């Protein structure tokens, strides 16, 4: 037991915050991110011997996290689950007013970005999240098992796709149809 504790502390505990940050970036909600990290912890605990043999435990853990995330996303596609995270769905009860912090979190641009991000493909979300967390393509290659050049192209497409989602809807100008001249 002590051995397990020591191994877990050495191999997993230092990376828990990073795992949570990436999980949150992928899912954009705290409970799901917590669940995902918990799942990674269980997997890590089951495979401590394997984990002890790798050079970079953080990459191994992130790979597990990514796989779990893909599984989760697949399940949700089969059973669509609509998160209602925007402020309009939050019921406020008397005696507590949203403070500046809460209001800042509701920033519309931020929310639009978040919603656009959640509409991306799963693999695009992974790429953008890891990159946003500071991982370079070489590290992402190790984590995802996808070749670097393929990743580069995907990352480029993911950014373009996100930018497109963020573009404001253009209002179409009303068409002017000339009336037929009366044949007077």
């Amino acid at each position, binding site marked *: 037991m002590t051995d*397990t504790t020591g191994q877990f502390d050495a191999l997993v505990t230092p990376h828990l915050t990073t795992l*949570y940050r990436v999980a949150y970036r992928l899912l954009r909600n705290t409970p799901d991110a917590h669940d995902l990290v918990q799942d990674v912890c269980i997997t890590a605990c089951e495979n401590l011997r394997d984990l002890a043999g790798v050079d970079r435990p953080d990459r191994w853990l992130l790979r597990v996290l990514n796989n779990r995330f893909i599984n989760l996303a697949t399940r949700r596609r089969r059973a669509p689950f609509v998160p209602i995270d925007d402020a309009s769905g*939050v019921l*406020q*009860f008397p005696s507590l007013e949203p403070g500046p912090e809460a209001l800042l979190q509701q920033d519309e641009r*931020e929310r639009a970005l978040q919603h656009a991000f959640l509409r991306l493909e799963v693999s695009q979300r992974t790429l953008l999240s890891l990159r946003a967390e500071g991982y370079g393509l070489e590290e992402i290659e190790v984590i995802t098992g996808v070749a670097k050049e393929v990743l580069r192209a995907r990352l*480029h497409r993911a*950014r373009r796709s996100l930018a497109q989602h963020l573009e404001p809807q253009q209002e179409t100008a009303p068409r002017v149809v000339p009336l037929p001249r009366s044949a007077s």
Partner: protein
Amino acid sequence: MNCQEFAQVLDEQELHQLPAVAREAAEAHLAACAACSSDHEVHQRLAALPIPAVSTARVAGWRALGTSGALDGARRQRVRARFAVIGVLAVMAAAAAVLGLRREDPPAQAVEVATAVAPSPVLGDTVVPASLIAEEVVTVATESGRVSAQPVQPGPRALTLLVQPLDYETEDGPVRDAAEHFYSAVVGGLREIPGLQIIGPDPAIDPASRQTDFRISAAARTAKANQQGVQWEVRLRMHVLQGDARRVQPILVGGMVAGEACPAEAPAGCGAAAMAPAILDLLRRMIVPADPSLEGRLAAQVQDAALPPVERVRALEILNCQRIAAGATCPRRDQLGADVVQAALGVVSGPGDPSTRAAFVRALRGQQHPELIQPLIEIAHREPVEPLRLEAVTSLAEDFSGDVAARSALELVARDDASPLVRKVAARATSGTAIWNEYAIATARDTALPVAQRLAPVEWMTSNKARGELPGLLDQLLDGAGAYVALADLLTAAQKESQVGAGTMALMSSLRDSRHSAAVDFWFAIFERSPEATVLSGLYRHRGEARVRRKLEEIAAAHPDLKLREAAASLLEQPQN
């Protein structure tokens, strides 16, 4: 630098990490290339999206899960494969018997019993951290070393609610106490709902894949500290996982922990005990099972004259307002059965306590059974107690304004009723909203009236269909020289006299969203009276205005209160609309 070179930089590093020469080249390319500039902006904005801090308790919980030794790796594997749940001998039988917990997949073989853990805290009397609830108790012992599933009791299909442990995002002891008190009371109340089985989490099963009908989770945090004291806050998330109606309903609730505003009799934090019933009520309405047998039981409760009226009216409310989709209003009112309506009418028309009768009238709102009209008219004309008359007139106005008899009654009430509020509610139905708005504004501005009376029309609007018209009324309230000062005086007085009801809160909320130019003056005036960060948040929508920015800059630069300086600076940093 060309696009390809820039892309390589963007894929590997941050611009600020580049050597000066390379950075200048990258920036020059950015300035000239719209496509790369867009890519860069997307990357920056994503990197800047906020990530809530993870609590130390949560990290400790993960660590405990991995290091507890309660389950070694191989055992976890077996448990996971069978979807079995580890239990504790000493508490299993009692807990399972009391809670009536049920398993979906009874294990066919023996499962080793884990080392002792505390009995289910969420399901018990208190709420404790996730790390202590990792192994939930849902099985009973049959013989030493072997466990088997608690057999499901025959009867109507029960719905299941998975209660996740309270998550702490604060280290503040009193805040934790208040949040625990609140969550414990809510879970305790949920357990009382007939037809609903409460189950605990299982570390071996992903909650998202757990076959439950509902899942509730909660996070406790410190909202803020101001002059009145510290505020606790709980963010509840109710996941409705049934059929096509899958959704998550977030609910934010909180109150004061300590300070002048906290009455001494609140043992576990001011507001925690008072808030739980309101939230519980909301949750009850959200999760009332569609099980016909349960609806039958509720209908029987309404009709059972031997039950206390409060229980009967609660059953009626639940029956009449099922499944809140979003927001605090009732979206679906199916027509109730005639027997239920008759039973409720018996109370409404009886000689009982007027407040009970008023509660029944309110609980029947939305029902358009013709037999309701005459009793409501009787009350509207003859009842001496104003709140009961008001409820009856509101029902006539909202549900029966197209009926000839009801309309005549409303016209009479609008002309003759002794109460101005009742008269205007009736007039609103017969003559339109202009007269009502005029009345509501004049009443709010009438400094000769008590504060509660001045706010009564707003309170009435908030609790009825007219709620959506509040922003329009607010704009009119802000019109006119100095009107904002009068409004600031009124709302400050309401706070001082503890008259802040749902209507006042809704008004404040509308003031935050208002685009009326005087809304800024209002918030400035409030800030003068009560310099708090909460007040500054009222300026959020107006942060792009020059005078607001000047004010925020002043506060950020020189205000003696650090929290205010930070709040102002934080607002200034936000992108402008």
